[in-house]
């Protein structure tokens, strides 16, 4: 009895001493979608921030994949208990921007007196996440697709490395199969719409939608049924029919078909560096995505990945914490560390310079490909990025139509016509819902 009382007294004593220290730290939540190795790295990043100062604590909460995080934050917002920060994928940009639920990041940082060197962000990154020249969300995990290949397969088939153009690459892949080096020249990535259609359009300077791919207004319409995308889909179909390209299908990831040495090449995000370095039993290399032989010079690719959005409805102290954390994220040191730890690109030129200076790319040459590819040439209207409302929905409609080509139900031209038609209906719905929002957001950010 006595011991118990003493214990309770001691407990209260500890709490009484601990409480002031606890109360002094402002706690904010950050919901994210990183899992596995990436999730561990993200937690390390947050710990670094928490240890670097004694005023704020960021709590990172894994909420599942991007879709689940989005749904989680929507539900929380509707219940009036949103987190302070949330990581949202690139396709959700317009939904978040016009949601009326966010505080634009640049506005917050200005208000809190942080000087961020915004023009220093790598162009495709900056243009993707900014609206009317001002950053709406803090770029966090930016990636771009690159071309991975099995060095041994190419050597056995008599090639130094993959060719630069789709035409020559096709000849190489057919040769690899014909010579019996590998049954599977390439494996279709799960997000082929991103790498092989959207980024393909950017690199080859093909318009995807009107009004500069949506950058100039909500009235944008898809036009990729009138561009090289149609012949790209036809090419994929031909490769599939000839067994040069394989679909991994459900229950098995395309990446495994590459890392196990079954498929000779693989188009995938630079962010898979961590996984491939760990899992690959093959001698792998990586290079730039191929381009069409009549396109010279090829343009930059565009980004994928996520950014950190700040949500409305919190107290000023909490926004102090958020601003401090975002400032930490934007620091070149943080960027370089994150780049090395994950394979995502450094978001600023300064960070990229720092990594170069330290000779990081001498040991990790493939990590530089994404940065070089993203900042290659001068971005055109076709390569700045994509700004379509309901972009997940239009993408799924497009994927269904491309699959109809793969199954042989539709010809590429017809499928792309149908995809554009369906996509435009979805865009009109977004436009209808957000009619008048364009100028409203404009006024707010100015």
């Amino acid at each position, binding site marked *: 009895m006595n011991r118990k009382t003493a214990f309770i007294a001691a407990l209260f004593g500890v709490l009484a001493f601990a409480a002031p220290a606890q109360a002094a730290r402002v706690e904010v939540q950050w919901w994210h979608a990183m899992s596995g190795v990436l999730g561990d790295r993200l937690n390390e990043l947050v710990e670094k921030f928490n240890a670097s100062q004694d005023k704020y604590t960021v709590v990172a909460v894994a909420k599942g994949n991007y*879709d689940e995080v*989005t*749904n989680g934050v*929507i539900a929380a*917002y*509707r219940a009036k208990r949103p987190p302070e920060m949330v990581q949202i994928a690139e396709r959700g940009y317009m*939904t978040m921007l*016009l*949601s*009326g*639920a966010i505080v634009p990041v640049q506005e917050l940082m200005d208000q809190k007196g942080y000087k961020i060197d915004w023009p220093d962000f790598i162009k495709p990154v900056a243009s993707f996440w900014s609206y009317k020249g001002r950053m709406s969300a803090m770029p966090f995990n930016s990636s771009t697709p690159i071309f991975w290949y099995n060095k041994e397969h190419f050597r056995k088939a008599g090639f130094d490395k993959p060719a630069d153009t789709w035409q020559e690459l096709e000849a190489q892949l057919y040769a690899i199969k014909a010579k019996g080096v590998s049954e*599977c020249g390439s494996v279709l990535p799960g997000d082929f719409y991103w790498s092989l259609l959207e980024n393909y359009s950017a690199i080859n300077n093909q318009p995807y939608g009107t009004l500069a791919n949506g950058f100039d207004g909500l009235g944008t319409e898809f036009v990729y049924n009138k561009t090289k995308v149609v012949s790209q889909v036809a090419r994929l179909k031909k490769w*599939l029919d000839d067994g040069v390209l*394989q*679909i*991994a*299908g*459900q*229950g*098995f990831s395309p990446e495994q*078909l590459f890392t196990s040495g*079954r498929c000779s090449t693989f188009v995938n995000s630079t962010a898979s560096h961590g996984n491939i370095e760990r899992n690959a039993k093959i001698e792998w290399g990586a290079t730039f995505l191929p381009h069409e032989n009549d396109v010279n010079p090829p343009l930059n690719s565009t980004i994928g990945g996520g950014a950190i959005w700040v949500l409305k409805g919190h107290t000023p102290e909490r926004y102090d914490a958020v601003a401090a954390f975002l400032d930490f994220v934007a620091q070149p040191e943080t960027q370089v560390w994150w780049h090395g730890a994950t394979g995502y690109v450094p978001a600023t030129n300064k960070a990229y310079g720092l990594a170069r200076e330290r000779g990081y790319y001498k040991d990790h040459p493939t990590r530089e490909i994404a940065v070089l590819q993203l900042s290659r040439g001068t971005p055109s209207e076709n390569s700045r990025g994509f700004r379509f409302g*309901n972009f*997940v*929905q239009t993408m*799924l409609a497009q*994927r*269904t*139509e491309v*699959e*109809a080509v*793969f*199954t*042989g*139900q539709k010809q590429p031209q017809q499928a792309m016509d149908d995809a554009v038609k*369906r996509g435009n209906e979805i865009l009109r*719905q977004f436009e*209808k*819902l*957000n009619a008048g*929002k364009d100028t409203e957001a404009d006024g707010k950010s100015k």
Partner: protein
Amino acid sequence: MNAGSPIVLSEASAAPVAQPSGLTRTQHAPPGGAVVGRGAMPPRPGRAQTTKRGRPDREPGLKRANFGHGPGLPTLLLLPQFLILVFFFFIPSLRALMQSVLLSDPFGNNVQFVWFDNFKALFANGEYRQSIVTTLWFTVAQNVITLAVGVVLAFATDRVVRARSVYRTVILLPYAIAPAIAGILWAFLFNPVVGPLAHMLHALGIGWDPNRNPSDALWLVIMAASWKHICYNYIFLAVGLLAVPASLMEAAAVDGAGPIRRFFLIALPMLGPTVFFLAVMNFIYGFFETFAIIDAVTHGGPAGATNILVYKVYVDGFVNLDLGSSAAQSVLLMSFALICTLLQFRYFDHKVNYGV
């Protein structure tokens, strides 16, 4: 049909043994629910007769509990169930109804009332019509396969003597596996690149490829969904078979009927209520509970070939964030399920022999 048999157990004594059919009766039979004999074709006189002979009248206290006076205790006892219904059925249904006539952004800051635009858009949408057809194929095929295999397994384990409980346990195992896991399992086994069963099919000269062949994909999800649900059917059918009076079977055996003949002429008709109940439950399962399997096995593809209604509701609502359309779809889906169930009752219920 066997009402004339002198050794038929009385209803009251059959009920506790025949759990599942008893369940059927209380859940789905008309009030007072029992002996609608096969001969009693016009349902109304049959039902009147039932009420007259209903057990409560004969054996007061057996079914109707005595709660004393006043509505207090019964209300209290009903409350949990009522609250569950309110929070998990009525409120969500109402919200779905309301959402189905709105165009709204996911955060709910921007809402427009659009009358029935969401419904109109659905019926004008070829993809949605395709989804209805796919759902019907999927559900009917799944229903037939599940019942058929369930009946065969129940019959088989009823006949084996040695290690019967081992067989039963093994058959019941899939029920303990989460649908998503089951889906991944099937997807992997039949993956055309790495799946061992797919390789067997290839070796047999079958060009199996659910990634590029819509009907292969549809079959794959039908098989996976059925496999997952056979155990459920099996439990009810196995117990139902136990309730078939041994004396009847023996009599038939003495008369020279073989096991197959006995099964089709005696056991199966007596399983009628169970089969009917399971058919309804399988429809509901196919309509509502299969989305995890679809998600794991095909993602609704290729080209929408396995995009059944409930999966489309999920994708449009939780991936595409098109809440209005998703709500309209769930309202329609609920109506379809209701119509199907009512039709089943309308056309099959009075053909089922509830008497033993």
